């Protein structure tokens, strides 16, 4: 808990970092209509995919900072050495990362969805998938961030490692909204997303912890 509060308050004192990824999300989502054309039917069709890819890239953007700051000032080493369980501490850091970079996207997504002319039900489903999906992205991405900690060219490498692993989240997240608009119902997609989230929540902090131990030994 203390770790969450610390991370959140640290980030709140440097607001521009949070705002960067939020604005990135907004800009990416607004670029697509400009590139594709203002045809509303097309936009409605691609909206879930565009918003999901935008959220995915925005969460990737802030991943590099997840462990880097603590690594530089030595806090991370103290965490590894401390008697508290490292997966627990890492899990708290991931949760803080999601609160700062995932939750704003979820809150902002309805506004962007309106730009794409999604109806109210589709927007509800979109928010639900992002609510389940963005923590999943944070959990998967954290493993990549821990593996690339302090490595040459870490940012590019991080995207190469993490993006293929994001595929299932993207498929089911964007798929849920499309299934909803197609009249199939989104509950199956949402259940699978939730299942993946639970599995990731168990394994990811543990994998992160061993990656950090490797990085710091």
């Amino acid at each position, binding site marked *: 808990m203390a770790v969450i509060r610390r991370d959140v308050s640290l980030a709140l004192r440097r607001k521009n970092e949070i705002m960067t990824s939020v604005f990135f999300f907004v800009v990416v989502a607004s670029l697509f209509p400009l590139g594709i054309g203002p045809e509303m039917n097309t936009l409605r069709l691609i909206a879930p995919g565009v918003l999901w890819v935008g959220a995915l890239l925005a969460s990737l953007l802030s991943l590099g900072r997840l462990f880097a700051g603590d690594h530089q000032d030595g806090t991370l080493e103290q965490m590894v050495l401390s008697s508290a369980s490292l997966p627990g501490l890492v899990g708290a850091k991931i949760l803080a990362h999601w609160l700062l970079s995932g939750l704003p996207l979820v809150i902002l997504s309805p506004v962007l969805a309106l730009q794409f002319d999604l109806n109210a039900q589709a927007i509800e489903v979109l928010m639900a998938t992002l609510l389940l999906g963005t923590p999943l992205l944070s959990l998967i991405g954290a*493993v990549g961030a821990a*593996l*690339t900690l302090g*490595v*040459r*060219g870490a940012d590019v*490498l991080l995207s*190469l*490692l993490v*993006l*293929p*692993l994001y*595929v*299932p989240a993207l*498929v*089911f997240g964007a*798929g849920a909204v*499309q*299934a909803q608009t197609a009249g199939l119902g989104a509950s199956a997609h949402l259940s699978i997303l939730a299942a*993946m989230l639970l599995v990731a929540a168990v*394994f990811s902090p543990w*994998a992160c912890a*061993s*990656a950090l131990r*490797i*990085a710091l*030994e």
Partner: protein
Amino acid sequence: MTQHSNVLFRFAAPQAFYGLAGRLWPWMAALATALGVWGLWMGMFVAPADFQQGQAYRIIYVHVPASWMSMIIYLAMAFWALLGLTFNTRLSGMMNRALAPTGAMFAFLSLWTGALWGKPMWGTWWVWDARLTSELILFFLYLGFMGLTASIDDPRRADKAGGLLALVGAINVPVIYFSVRWWNTLHQGASVSVTQGSSMAQTMLWAMLLMALSFWLYAIAIALYRIRTLILEREKHTLWVEAELRPEGGAR
């Protein structure tokens, strides 16, 4: 049991494995060539032309074994990674780094021959079919592994980080495959199925199995060859490497 594990662990030492690999790889390479020539001859000349696809189907003799190998090599890497992270053996990490380029090569070969096959059969180089897409993602996973291990300077850390990545990837591969498959069936009603009929002619099956065996042996041979170089590089501070590389002495 103890006798057995002693034999296994003896070759876990890089020096012992260096000798073993040196003795094995020429045999493997020779066998791979022989089987490859035999398999290609069977596939190109003996096997009958497919009654639907004509002669063009013959690329299957490269395509399918390459796809198998790209998946098997990833499984092998996950196995070595697990071994390396549990027993802390140095050789496992080297094995993975020796295997990864071959796996990436097979994944690329499979995608490339698939595109060449797809053009005359389906009229398109690429479809977003579940198998094609997951093969592409597998290729990305190989590239990620190679990128990660190449950019960490400390070899022990690179091995361990790569091993962890290989394990995480191995857990994800089935999830990716099924999610892509479901995504595909939801989107495209008339998707192209890559599945071949199960009633293959006997000679076709034999040719394909020969090719698969040949690719398998090739992968082992090239990995052993590569691991010899890796061992020499890692152990260059030791006396035995110095003796090995001295121009007048050494086995080779």
